[in-house]
């Protein structure tokens, strides 16, 4: 006697996706039909294999390229003044001074020329600011020491 139950129906039954009435019919059928019982067991084996089926993972080179592309894309959309390479206009805005004032100290800036334009690397600019801070701090300290020494001398004379 040929069995009318399809694999698709057994799959629905296995995942609990058929109508409750049909589920009861199929449960009774599988209990008496050896072939359907075997097919149901086959579906369960497929589930086990699929459940632990290896997920394909990207190559290291692909990962690196994607991370770089993302990073680049995020950089490109930064507001002006936040780019890694800055124009003098952006440097002036970053330093909160006028472009004229910047022109006056332009020869001290860690800049480079490309295609006839002056550009500044943000990282070098930050280093340059730190050096300036240090230098000015030392000058202030030296100034204070000199003043203190002078005062001491004055006392000594008096």
């Amino acid at each position, binding site marked *: 006697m*040929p*069995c*009318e*139950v*399809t*694999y*698709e*129906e*057994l*799959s*629905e039954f296995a*995942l609990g*996706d058929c109508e409750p009435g049909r589920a009861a019919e199929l449960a009774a059928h599988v209990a008496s039909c050896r*072939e*359907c019982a*075997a*097919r149901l067991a*086959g*579906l369960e*084996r*497929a*589930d086990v*294999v*699929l*459940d632990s*089926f290896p*997920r*394909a*993972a*990207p*190559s290291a080179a*692909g*990962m690196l*390229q*994607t*991370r770089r*592309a*993302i990073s680049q*894309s*995020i950089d490109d*959309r930064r507001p002006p003044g936040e780019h890694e390479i800055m124009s003098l206009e952006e440097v002036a805005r970053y330093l909160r001074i006028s472009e004229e004032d910047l022109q006056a100290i332009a020869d001290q800036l860690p800049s480079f020329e490309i295609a006839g334009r002056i550009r500044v690397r943000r990282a070098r600019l930050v280093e340059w600011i730190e050096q300036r801070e240090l230098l000015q701090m030392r000058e202030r300290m030296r100034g204070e020491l000199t003043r203190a020494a002078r005062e001491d001398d004055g006392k000594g004379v008096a």
Partner: protein
Amino acid sequence: MSDADRPTGGLSDDDLMAMFASGDRDAFDVIFDRHHVMVYNYARHLVRRAAEAEEVMQDVFLAVARAAAVYVRRGRFRAWIVSMTRNACFNRLNAERARRETQTGSAILMLPATDRATVPGEDLEAGETESAVGAALAALPERQREVLVLYAIEHMPYREIAEALEMPIGTVKTLLHRARAAVARTIASVRGEEDRHAV
């Protein structure tokens, strides 16, 4: 909110997207780490070639980064990223099909299914079954294949698959059961079990 939207770390994908949109770059790294394997694996089953799946992965995450500013928090990040991956894959597949048709008429390119693992000796069983499943998966029609990959390998619930693939849940179920039936038939034939049933 599904489990995927509220994982152990406490920050949902929507939280991370909001953080990224307000300038926190590290938030995007977390999003990438969380989803890139799923995106790649799903793409790999559709476009098949590793290099192309990697390109799709890159395109998808660049699009996610670009869309962060206008992203609407609805707890559906994963469905959204799957649907973007799908569009990227089908754009490529359609372009390739169009190219092939103009070049060679109606020639169908048979791509290699999976590398059949050759396991010597008595332990053939497990490897044979896995490679049979791989071959069966690769031979499925695209819509059945993507539903089976998302359901069985990526463990996505029906609702989320239906949302991502923009089809009714009933269609997801129909496609899934057809796919499972095809895979089970392949396993049965590999194991030498005669299927005498009406198909």
